[in-house]
């Protein structure tokens, strides 16, 4: 462990005191932040020596960001337990027998959720709820199932205090899936996030039910099942914001490149492609290697967690997510440096440069090998990160900046279709739609079906006037943001992130479709 200076200690002590006194944080939020402060006293990672200048520097120059993971990883960032196995075998650690009916199953799940950690300390994946619960719903009438689901979902919303929590349904139509969406549309809660996997086998009626639900409660989002299956196999799931991961595993870490700031270091497009970008790509990959090595070899999590001991996760099903943000601003800045005015999302030349940059990143990732990412052939998975509330002038992933969306949705979709294929561990675009569409949900259906055929990976829609809205990947209630803005503390951590994003990232100003 490297020593730290007293000056740094004093700085951290001040931060800790600020957290303790923060009137807008709940008790649970303070505990989370205090743990993070403690972790950041540590200097146990074998970091690349170039990292400090790229990551621990002013926001305007920062090229690498570890998304608050802390400097001594003691649990994987994302964990995606094998819930079917849990329901089959119960848990010795949690003293639970295999459930025999719907009420026992939901009770067992709630207990397990409480014991699944993550970067947020809350579970980021809570299962394929349709398949998971179907056997327990046989023989029960719709009203009974809905009542049980309603209580379950209210408990999830009120106790998982963070909307980076994701349930999955589809691609097959199911009674439980339909009932779940009916209840979600009535509740209009922010938690959990919900994804419907959509394939050619998903019937129109099921997809339409999803669209109607989304126009009420901003969920489900729609994932391209064929694409994820092709890349990650049949055991894939969608966790956290929209992250494709392997069930029974998860992701050790997620760090991100801030492409817009890397572009600032470059004198020209050629300099960016040949020197600046490859340099940062290499530093971030080595940093992630160091994080993973500590987590796997030293933290002890994979030896001590009951999730591992009871076979609900397996170290070999974990991978890591190599993230990026700010492609649009990166391309625009590089074009300016070449004396050109064309802009990302509005010009073939600019979009082509975006593709060329993604090809470089993709090729780098395919050449970099980490010994603990066996499940993804030794490579990290690229991830279009959804941004932070503190991001300024940096759009999520490869998104077109809010306020610069093309006039026509078709042009927006064409841009999107160039980039979604690079991100097996997740990317997505979000469209608020006008109320009129309520009367024609098939409009959204046609767009989703077309998108799947164009290898667009993941789409979200919400009604431009609903209370629950999608911020960047997660959901918040406008009404809760207003409370927080008025100085009250609120239950869910993500409400604060949403408020920051509304102020800094203009998420309330998206072009309505």
């Amino acid at each position: 462990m490297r020593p730290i200076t007293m000056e740094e200690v004093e700085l951290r002590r001040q931060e800790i005191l600020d957290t303790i006194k923060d009137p807008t944080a709940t008790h649970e939020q303070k505990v989370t932040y205090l743990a993070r402060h403690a972790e950041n006293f540590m200097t146990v990672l074998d970091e690349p020596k170039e990292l400090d200048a790229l990551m621990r520097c002013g926001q305007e120059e920062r090229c690498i960001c570890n998304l608050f993971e802390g400097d001594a990883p003691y649990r994987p960032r994302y964990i995606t337990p094998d819930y079917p196995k849990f329901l089959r075998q119960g848990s010795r650690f949690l003293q639970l027998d295999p459930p025999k009916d719907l009420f026992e199953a939901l009770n067992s799940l709630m207990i397990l959720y409480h014991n699944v950690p993550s970067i947020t300390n809350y579970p980021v994946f809570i299962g394929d709820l349709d398949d998971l619960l179907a056997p327990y719903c046989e023989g029960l009438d719709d009203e009974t199932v809905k009542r049980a689901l309603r209580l379950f979902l209210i408990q999830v919303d009120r106790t998982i205090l963070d909307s980076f929590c994701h349930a999955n349904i589809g691609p097959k139509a199911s009674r439980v899936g339909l009932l779940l969406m009916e209840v979600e549309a009535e509740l209009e809660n922010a938690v959990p996030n919900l994804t419907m996997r959509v394939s050619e086998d998903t019937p129109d009626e099921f997809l339409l039910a999803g669209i109607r639900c989304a126009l009420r409660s901003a969920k489900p989002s729609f994932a391209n099942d064929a694409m994820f299956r092709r890349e990650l196999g049949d055991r894939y799931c969608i966790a956290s914001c929209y992250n494709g991961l392997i069930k029974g595993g998860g992701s050790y870490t997620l760090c991100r490149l801030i492409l817009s700031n890397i572009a600032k270091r470059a004198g020209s497009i050629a300099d960016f492609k040949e020197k600046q970008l490859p340099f940062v790509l290499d530093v971030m990959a080595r940093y992630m290697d160091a994080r993973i090595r500590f987590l796997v070899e030293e933290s002890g999590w994979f030896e001590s967690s009951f999730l591992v001991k009871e076979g609900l996760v397996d170290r070999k099903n974990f991978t890591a997510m190599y993230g990026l943000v700010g492609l649009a601003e990166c391309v625009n800045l590089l074009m300016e440096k070449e004396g050109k005015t064309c802009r990302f999302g509005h010009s073939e030349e600019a979009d082509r440069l975006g593709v060329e940059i993604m090809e470089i990143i993709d090729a780098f990732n395919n050449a970099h090998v980490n010994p603990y990412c066996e499940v993804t052939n030794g490579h990290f998975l690229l991830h279009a990160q959804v941004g932070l509330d503190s991001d300024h002038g940096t759009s999520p992933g490869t998104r077109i900046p809010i306020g610069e969306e093309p006039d026509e949705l078709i042009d927006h979709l064409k841009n999107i279709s160039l980039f979604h294929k690079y991100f097996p561990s997740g990317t997505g675009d979000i469209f608020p739609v006008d109320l009129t569409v309520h009367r024609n949900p098939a409009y959204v259906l046609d767009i989703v079906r077309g998108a799947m055929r164009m290898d667009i990976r993941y789409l979200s829609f919400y009604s431009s006037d609903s209370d629950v809205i999608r911020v960047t990947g997660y959901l918040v209630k406008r009404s809760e943001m207003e409370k927080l803005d008025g100085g009250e503390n609120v239950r869910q951590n993500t409400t604060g992130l949403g408020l920051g994003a509304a102020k800094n990232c203009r998420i309330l100003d998206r072009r309505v479709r």
Partner: protein
Amino acid sequence: MSVRAPVNRILPFSAVDGPGNRTAVFLQGCPFNCLYCHNPETIRPCDGCGACLAACPTGAIRREGAAVVYDKALCVMCDACIRACPKSSCPRLRWLSAEDTMAEVRRNLPFIRGVTVSGGECTLHREYLLELAALTRAEGLTLLLDSNGSHDFARDPELTAAVDGVMLDVKAWDAREHLRLCGRPNAVVLDNLRFLVQAGKLAEVRTVVVPEEMDAALTVRSVSRTLRELGGAGVPYKIIRFRPMGVRPAYKHFRPPTGAELDTLEAIARAEGMEKIVRI
């Protein structure tokens, strides 16, 4: 040699011009002159008078000989030309063949399920529609017409067969009321209502509700009853609230119906047996 039609606008994606997502093509020129028309600039063909030339801030409109020529690439869609036009017209026209139109439609694949031709009144350009119908069908798309019902479909089996359906406006059931509201009689419109539903080509019926200007209850009841009697209870009936947006200044004061008034109309249609009532 393909015929060309005056295209006022092509909307790549539309949620309001028929089922699903469709490309909507708006043609210029309409034989009706409805007082409440919300895009009156599509009523008359441009006669090249040039009153709009000075209004255009980007030079997208210029004179070439006797004609006014429009350059879409320079246009910023500010509508200054429309405001300057004294004749319910618009210089933003492109004379496109069906093949030209399809070239733009194909850009929207595979996100659309069909094309809707609207107006103005699209049936003024029958030959163009026939060609476009063949092209859309070849692409696996449906073609719907949005029509005021002035074209006698019963006497045009070729066009009736070529299109997948007609979305028909029935503006008023009473003949005198229709004449006052739209400047033309409605006998053909009502013939079309009966003919198209029996031919299985009635995709949708629409009535715009302007409370003081028409007997909306009579129109909704009569349309619903006629459709039910002819086996068309399942045809979607859109009951549309009048909105002053885009309406000419002289008629902007018309009153939009209240929610309660629309409730009453919806109840009438339902009582007559209509199954799919959509309020907009």
